C-alpha cells in the first residue's frame, strides 16, 4: 500500500464544512437558494416564502422590495443564517445553511455576515467603541487587537471622535454609522440590511446609502438591502420584488 493511496481518501473525506477553510470564490455565486419554503406554524399556518429559487453572485448589490408582510424579512433571515427554511436549500459559499446546527450558524454569522437593522439595534449600555468590539468577541480576537480594529471601523464611518459615547448620546444617523462599523469590523463577505434608512430623515438616508455603497465598492462586498423605499432600491444593481412569499425580478 503506497502512502499516496492511503492519504488520498483522507483528504477527500474531510468535509469542507468549515466555511472559512478556503478563500471565498467571489467570481461564482455567493448565495444559492433552491426551492426554499418557509412556513410559520401557529393557529394559522403562514407560508412566508413559497418555493423561492434564487442566486446572488458575489459582490452584487441587491434590493428587495415589496409590501409589508410580503416575506422580505423572512428572506433576509434565510440569507442571514438566522433561521432555517421549512424545506429547500440555502447555500452560502460552500456552506449549506439549511442543515447546519445552531452553533455552526452562529459561527457563520460571526465570521461572514454583517447585519444592519432598521432600529440600529445597538446595545444601549455599551459605548460606540464597545458596541463595535462586541462583533469581534465571538471571533476570539485579543483585547488589544479588538480595540484597534474597532477604532479603525469607527474612523471608517466618520465617528472616531464619538467612540466613547453611548447610543443615547448619538443621533439616529450616527447610531446607524456605529451599527455599520459593527457590521464591517469583522470584514464580512456579505452585508445584509433590513430597512437601513427606514428610521432616518432623507438627508441622513442619503449619507448612509452612500456610506454603504462606498464600502461595498471598496471591499467588494455582497450587499442585500430590504427596503420599501424606491429611491433606495433604484441605487441597486438588481431589484427583487417579494409579494405573498413569491420572488420576482424587476
Amino acid at each position, binding site marked *: 500500500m503506497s502512502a499516496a493511496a492511503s492519504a488520498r481518501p483522507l483528504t477527500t473525506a474531510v468535509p469542507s464544512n468549515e466555511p472559512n477553510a478556503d478563500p471565498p470564490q467571489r467570481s461564482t455565486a455567493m448565495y444559492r437558494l433552491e426551492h426554499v419554503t418557509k412556513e410559520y406554524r401557529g393557529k394559522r399556518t403562514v407560508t412566508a416564502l413559497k418555493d423561492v429559487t434564487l442566486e446572488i453572485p458575489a459582490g452584487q448589490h441587491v434590493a428587495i422590495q415589496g409590501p409589508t408582510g410580503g416575506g422580505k*424579512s423572512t428572506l*433576509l*433571515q434565510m440569507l*442571514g443564517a*438566522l*433561521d432555517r427554511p421549512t424545506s429547500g436549500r440555502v447555500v452560502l459559499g460552500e456552506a449549506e445553511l439549511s442543515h447546519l446546527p*445552531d*452553533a455552526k450558524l*452562529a*459561527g457563520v*454569522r*460571526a*465570521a461572514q*455576515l454583517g*447585519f444592519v*437593522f*432598521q*432600529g440600529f*439595534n445597538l*446595545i*444601549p*449600555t*455599551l*459605548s460606540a467603541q*464597545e458596541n463595535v*468590539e*462586541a*462583533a469581534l*468577541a*465571538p*471571533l476570539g480576537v485579543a483585547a488589544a487587537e*479588538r480595540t484597534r480594529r474597532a477604532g479603525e471601523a469607527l474612523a471608517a464611518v466618520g465617528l472616531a471622535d464619538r467612540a466613547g459615547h*453611548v447610543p443615547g448620546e448619538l443621533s439616529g444617523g450616527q447610531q446607524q454609522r456605529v451599527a455599520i462599523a*459593527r*457590521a464591517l469590523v*469583522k470584514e464580512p463577505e456579505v452585508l445584509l440590511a*433590513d430597512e437601513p434608512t427606514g*428610521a432616518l430623515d432623507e438627508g441622513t438616508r442619503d449619507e448612509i446609502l452612500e456610506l454603504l455603497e462606498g464600502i461595498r465598492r471598496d471591499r467588494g462586498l455582497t450587499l442585500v438591502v430590504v427596503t420599501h423605499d424606491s429611491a433606495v432600491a433604484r441605487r441597486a444593481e438588481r431589484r427583487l420584488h417579494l409579494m405573498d412569499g413569491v420572488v420576482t425580478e424587476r
Partner: protein
Amino acid sequence: MFFTFLRRELAGRRRQTAIVAIGMALAIALVMIVNAVSTGMRDAQAEVLQSVYGVGTDLTVTATPAAPGDGGADGGPQRFEFDAGDGQTADGSTALSQSRLAAGPGSQTFDAAALDTVQGLDGVEAAAATLSLENVTFSGELPAMSQDQGGTDVQTAPGGDGAPPQGGFDGAGGSAFDVDRVTVLGIDPAGAAVGPLSAAAVDEGRGLEASDAGRAVAVLDASYAASAGLAVGDAIELGGTDFEIVGTVVSTSADATTASNAYVPLDLAQSLSGQEGKVSDVYVQAASADRIDAVQSAIEEALPDTTVSTQSDLAAQVSGSLGSASALISNLGLWVSIAVLAAAFLTAVLFTIQGVTRRTREFGTLKAIGWRNRRIVGQVAGESLVQGLIGGAAGLVVGLAGIWVVNLLGLTLGGSAGGGFTAGGPGAMPGADASAGAPAGGATGPFSAASQTATDVVLSAPVTVGVIAVAIGLAVLGGLLAGAVGGWRAARLRPAEALRSVG
C-alpha cells in the same frame, strides 16, 4: 468583553440591580440575624442548664414522680407550731421565728445507695449525689399574750369597753408574719467534681471541703448572699441550726445565679431534713459522649424507679422567657426566614426574566452578530450572580449591624430548669390586723427576691463563620438561581428577534 458588558449593564440598569440586591440583602440579613439569635438562644439554654446541672453532666437521675395523690407530700405546706414559751417578748409584742428544712417542692428523694450503683456501672466516669431541700423560715410578731388579756376577748369584742388592744407589729394588736424560703442543696464535700457546683466558682471565702462533712458550714450563692444581707463569717439558720457561712460562689456563666441559694454538707442536710440516707439527684458524667445512651439504659435497668434524663431532655425543660423565645425563634424565625428568602429569590428571578424579556431585541442582535448561546447565558448568569453578591455584601453588612444591635440591646432572658429550683407559692402572708383590717405593708418585701433562683441570661448573638458562610452561600445561590432561569430564557430567544420592528 464579559466584564465590560457586565459592568456596563449593572451600572446602566441601576434600578433593577438595586431592587434585586436590596431584596437579597434584606433576606440574607434576616437569615443571619435569626441564625445568630437562635445560636445565642442555644448558648443561653446551655448556660441555664449548666448553672443548674453543672458542667460536664451528661445524665441526671431523679426519682420517678409518684402517682398524684401522695406526690406532693414532701413539698407541701408544713405546720409551724409554737409553744407558749417560744419567742421573745418586748414592748407588748412577741417575736417568733422558726425554720424548717425539708425536701424542695416537686423533688423526691431516693436511697443514696443509688449513687454506689451508678458508680459501679460500666462507662460511668464520675457521679455525685445531691439532696435538694428548701428551708422555710416562719417569723413574725404578734401581740403579747398575758393572763389578764384573753385572746378571745380581743378577737370577739374589738369595740367593747375593754382597753384598746396594744402591742403587735403595729402597736395596735396586729400581727405580721414573713415566710422566707431558701433553697438548700446538700452536697458531698468529698464527692466527685460533677454536679451543680462544677459550674460555679468561689467568689469569697472558700468552697466546701472534705473536712466539712458533718460540720454546720454553708456556702451561699453570691447574689443570694447579697440580697439577704449575709456575708462570709455570718451565720444562717437552716432547719433550726446555725450554719457558719464559709464562702460564696458565683456562676461561671455570666449573669446566671447558681443552682441553689445555699450549699451545705450532704450528711447534715440529710439529718436536719429527716431524709437520712436519701438523695434527690444523681449527676452522672459518661466516660465518652458515645457511651451516654448505653449508660442511660444501664442506669434505667439498675434503678427502675428513677428517671434518667439526658442533656437534650433537660434542654426541653428550660422554661421561662428563654424557653418561649427559643421556641419562637426556632419556629417563627425559621419560617419567616424561609418566606422572606423565597420572596427575595422570586423577586430576583422575576426581575431577571423581566430584564431578559425587555432585552429581547438586544440578545437577538447579539445572536445575529454571532454570539453563541453559551456566551449570552454566561452574561445573564454573570449579571445575576453579581447582583446576588452585591445583595449578599449589603446583607452581610445589614445582618452584622442587626446582630450588633441585638447584642447591644442586651436582652435578658429568664430561664429556669429542673423542678426544684424555682420557688413557687404565695409571696407573703398579710398579717391579721384586728382593728383596721388592712393588710400589713412591708411583709412582701424581702421574700420574693430571696427565694428566686431562676437564671437570667443576657442574650448574646454570636457572629460565627457559619453565619457568614450562610450569607455568602445564599447570595451565590440566589444569584445562580436567577441567572439560570434568566439565562435559560435568553437561550431560547431566536436570533431573528433582532429583526423585530422597533415599534
